[in-house]
């Protein structure tokens, strides 16, 4: 397939219909037949990149600017790019606990965009949702970037910190995420400062043999019931067995 289809026109050369049509096909279809390629405007209509939303004190949000990876998004067919960090105005969260959707907002006469939040993910010619966060009535948590540039796992929405554990005990931790977490990690440490190896807890050992998983969730709490064996009720792994030590629970929503 030839690309581009269009070619230079010499000074004084009449511009033929083929010139115009090739140029148009290059612009709209990257030189391909309309039957084989979506128009560029449609193809990029849902484009969004480098939109990593982070927490900004107090109870605000920031979309950080990078000259190498500038925040960019197409809204209503307009190609928008931020030239500096975009901050959510103060006082946008109030009232009862709820999941808020973070929107990029286009305004006429601007090639950049602003941020707003709403409890509904409105998507129209001037607004596109780019993430979400959870407002517990006083604080923000669980900030999710749908088009972020950060590789790897985002920061957890809940981190219990270390707490002491023992076999045959139920621990309730208030994660406050407003929904059952989509993912979690329960770590075990033999030392109080979490130094040394952190072992992933999947099961605990049962008195008399066998093992059982330990963790459950609802929209508010995490429940960890350690198993009954003094030797492995808290963690039962090829890496470590223990009926005591320290747990740290991380949750993502």
């Amino acid at each position, binding site marked *: 397939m030839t690309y581009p289809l269009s070619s230079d026109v010499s000074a004084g050369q009449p511009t033929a219909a083929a010139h115009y049509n090739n140029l148009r096909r290059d612009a709209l279809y990257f030189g391909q037949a309309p039957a084989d390629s979506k128009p560029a405007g449609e193809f990029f209509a849902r484009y969004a990149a480098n939109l990593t939303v982070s927490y900004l004190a107090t109870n605000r949000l920031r979309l950080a600017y990078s000259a190498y990876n500038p925040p960019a998004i197409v809204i209503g067919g307009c190609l928008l790019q931020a030239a500096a960090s975009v901050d959510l105005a103060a006082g946008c969260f109030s009232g009862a606990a709820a999941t808020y959707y973070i929107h990029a907002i286009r305004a006429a006469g601007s090639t950049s965009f602003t941020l707003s939040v709403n409890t509904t993910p409105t998507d129209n010619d001037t607004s596109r949702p780019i993430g979400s966060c959870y407002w517990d009535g006083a604080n923000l948590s669980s900030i999710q970037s749908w088009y972020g540039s950060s590789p790897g796992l985002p920061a957890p929405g809940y981190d219990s910190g270390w707490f002491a554990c023992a076999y045959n005990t139920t621990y309730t931790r*208030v994660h406050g995420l407003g929904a059952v977490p989509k993912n979690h990690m329960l770590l075990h440490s033999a030392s109080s400062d979490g130094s040394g190896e952190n072992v992933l807890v999947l099961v605990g050992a049962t008195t008399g043999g066998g093992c059982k998983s330990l963790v459950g969730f609802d929209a508010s709490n995490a429940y960890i019931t350690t198993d009954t064996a003094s030797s492995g009720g808290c963690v039962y792994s090829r890496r*470590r067995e223990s009926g005591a030590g*320290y747990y740290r629970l991380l949750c993502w929503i």
Partner: protein
Amino acid sequence: MITIIRNPDGSIKTWSEFSDNAAALLPGESLETVNTTFNEYSRRFTLSCAGHSGETLRFPCASGDLTVEVRCPGESTASLEINGVVETLPLIDGQAALLLSTEVPGTFVLKPADTARYCPAGQAILVIEVV
């Protein structure tokens, strides 16, 4: 600042690095805050053997006596519950050593006897299996 959760009988159930929410309590449990660090509170009563604590240890039968190190800084005695039997040890500089025999296969479960003062969790429980 750390938080402590007590069981309905007054014994300490756990202590936490971050502040616990009262909503985390089960019926009868109570919440306290203590102005100290998590590490400092964790070192109030620790049991270790061969340099290990907070995990189950296994030793072969007839491999000689084991030395369990008891650390209870600032105290002159420490009461341990060893397989349900309470034994009080004199401490020197907040430390004592306890010998356990490996002549007979079995499990030693050691923890503080005064659970209203010291939480039987973290590094205050030591399980040693002689196999």
